[in-house]
């Protein structure tokens, strides 16, 4: 049994209770500045940070949420992540937010933004278009929206957000990405230093506390791993793909079956750590290029060939025994990738477990049974 990681414990202490955590309260108390909620990975946190505000990712967490109230405003034939977040909003859990920024990454993200604006408007609300193509034209289209966002945020702040501040924030966030990438590299080891659940907890913390503090803790975490020689000894290596899992009890349930998640393909995981914003370009353009073209292709991109390719490639790089796919019901994008993904993994000889849980669903007995059955299947293949 490995000792808990002190740096991760500190991240978790700072980001608890969820969502109005110690870190949020300290931020408000010590700086008196705004906290801006952001919803999906096409919102550049760097711009919010450069405005002297705390970017905070709006999500659910490790506790399932009853969504009946939310369903009065967003019908139940929609994504449970969207409904969870709106329920938390309705319950007043996000009352500490001064603003909410989202992108039209999918129809449901866009409608959550709209429902929030209509029924519980915050002082600052913004919606940006997230291009479906990865082309030069798409970068320019997105850049226009980003400039508009910057203008309106400056107006809200009553102070122009200067390029220099944005450049500084880019460097800070780039540093965070480098540190998170190092953790991914370490997970390639035969015995990775962290579990999949721990890795996602780290990634969640990145979007829930001041990035300066996160980077310090991340440095400590990597040093701690180096110092202690921590190793996770499990029989099977898994990869997690699909929608974001913010309830890490689901991952713990998977890992309880003598397995460890060594890599993922989630926005909350790999994509948060991926790539670097080019510091040689004008900062706004650099951000636009990074967010449209600089990260691995995701589910919302029309041409998802490279996403499917990436999953196969990662599975080989991280020597995984099986892939666990988590597609929340009503996720249209993942729905349309499903058939070809399965075919491609079959061709590569990689088994896949399609969990398809509701967002925030607890990692209970049902999940354990399915995980155990999958592990047995992996074992029989290995034997």
């Amino acid at each position: 049994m490995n000792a808990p990681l002190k740096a991760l414990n500190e991240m978790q202490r700072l980001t608890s209770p969820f969502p109005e955590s110690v870190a949020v309260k300290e931020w408000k108390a010590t700086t008196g500045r705004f906290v801006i909620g952001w919803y999906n990975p096409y919102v550049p946190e760097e711009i919010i940070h450069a405005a002297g505000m705390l970017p905070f990712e709006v999500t659910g967490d490790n506790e399932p949420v009853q969504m009946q109230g939310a369903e009065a405003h967003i019908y139940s034939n929609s994504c449970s992540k969207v409904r969870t977040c709106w329920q938390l909003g309705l319950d007043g859990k996000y009352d500490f937010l001064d603003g909410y920024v989202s992108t039209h990454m999918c129809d449901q993200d866009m409608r959550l933004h709209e429902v929030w604006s209509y029924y519980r408007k915050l002082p600052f609300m913004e919606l940006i278009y997230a291009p479906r193509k990865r082309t030069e034209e798409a970068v320019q289209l997105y850049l226009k929206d980003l400039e508009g966002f910057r203008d309106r945020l400056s107006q809200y702040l009553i102070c122009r957000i200067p390029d220099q501040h944005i450049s500084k924030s880019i460097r800070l966030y780039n540093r965070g990405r480098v540190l998170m990438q190092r953790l991914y590299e370490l997970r390639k080891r035969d015995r990775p230093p962290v579990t999949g659940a721990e890795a996602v907890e780290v990634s969640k913390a990145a979007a829930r506390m001041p990035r300066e503090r996160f980077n310090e803790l991340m440095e400590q975490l990597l040093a701690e791993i180096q110092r202690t020689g921590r190793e996770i000894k499990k029989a099977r290596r898994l990869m997690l793909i699909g929608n974001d899992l913010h309830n890490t009890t689901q991952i713990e349930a998977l890992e309880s079956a003598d397995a460890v998640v060594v890599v993922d393909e989630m926005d909350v995981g790999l994509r948060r750590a991926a790539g670097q914003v080019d510091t040689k370009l004008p900062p706004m353009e650099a951000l636009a290029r990074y967010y449209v073209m600089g990260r691995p292709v995701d589910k919302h991109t029309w041409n998802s060939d490279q996403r499917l390719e990436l999953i196969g490639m990662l599975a080989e790089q991280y020597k995984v025994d099986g892939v666990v796919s988590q597609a929340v019901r009503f996720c249209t994008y993942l729905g349309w990738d499903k058939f070809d993904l399965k075919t491609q993994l079959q061709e590569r000889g990689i088994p896949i477990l399609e969990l398809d849980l509701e967002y925030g669903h607890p990692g209970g007995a049902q999940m354990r049974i399915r995980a155990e059955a999958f592990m047995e299947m992996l074992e029989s293949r290995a034997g």
Partner: protein
Amino acid sequence: MSNDKILSVDEIRATLKKMKAGVKKQPGLMKSTYRYLDAVSGYVERIANAKEEGAWVASHGTQQPLEILEAMDVRGVFNEFWGVVSDIARLESVPAAMSVSASLGTPGEVCSFFRNMDGLMHVGKWPRSDMFLYAASVCDNVKAFHTLGRRYGIPSFGLERSFLPYTAHAIEFWKNEYKRLIAFLEEQTGKKMDYDRLKDVVAKSYRLTELHLEIDKLVASVPCPLSPECFSATLVAIRCWPGTQYGIDFLTEVRDELQERVDKGIGAIENERFRVLWSTFTPFFDPTLMGFMQKKYGAVSVADMLSTWRVDENLQANWLLDPDDPLGNLAYRTVLAPGNCQYSTGVDVGTVLAGKCRRFKVDAAIFQNNWGCKTGAGYGPIIKDELMRQVKVPTLTLHSDILDHTFISRAEIESQMDSFFEMVEASKAYQERRAAA
């Protein structure tokens, strides 16, 4: 699994021909019914005969500049319309095709327009297509065009646009996307765009818009002259025949008949009790529902969201700003065009529809919460609240599937409508409206 229930192109053609012959003998229908079925059937014939007539076929989603296709001899297969026409021809076809789609692993929660297409393609009953075209609208399902294109080796092109399509830069971007679409079509067909022809097509399309709005004015009359059998005439013209003389002749005939009925005071039924707006889709999954509503409740369908133009204070949708700039006109057309209003906020859609409620003297709205439509699930409650707030029009939310008649039974719908219309009739707003009429 037998695929016998799934209709092939030829079976649809044969069924529509029989239906056309049938309506000639049926008494009590609007004269335009035959022409309406001819427009539906003619659209299918154009697709079926494309190859032998030397035309290309592009299967496509919503918000496509069909005028560009028309000017390049590319015939569109609108995937949504294909689902609707399948329901018109045989209700069992779509559920059977969707079973095939499910067997491939496509989740049942994605839109049935696309699941129907998925199933038909797998069994080889989708119209032969040279290419797929799609656009950023309010439908994430358009990703399916790329996915299916990859699976079946069909080249595809997607049109990108900003969520805020009303800004100058968004319209300029959209226009440039049209240029890129033309380049794609030129590459696929080996044919150059004839811009003079495009101008002519665009002018014809504008005439169709004018006719549509003239028809709207007539339909707004009390009693409503439009019967359910022709309710979708304008939608079919605008979505299937833009830029063609056929479309103009078709809507001219419909308009003239409606004018005649208005002049003679002929309504869809004798005693209108309720005037209904479909605040999202009309009930494609049950082609006889509107007729049933008229008969049982005296509820006449007078308007819907899908065939709504964004009109100015003069009730015009003037998108032909510069006849020498066909692409600019088309970019602006899309902003005003029917169906595009969904690409906006629920408050905006609610406001557009509230205006329609006032003009069409609507008493009640029905919002079909289509199972596979995430846009509807997200903005339905706001539209409902806005219609009540702005024009005191109550909404019945009908949880259904746009194409699949097995999703909700007629008995269930009837039970919901019984209570709904009873409630509407007892409401103060309804009584005040009737007293003022």
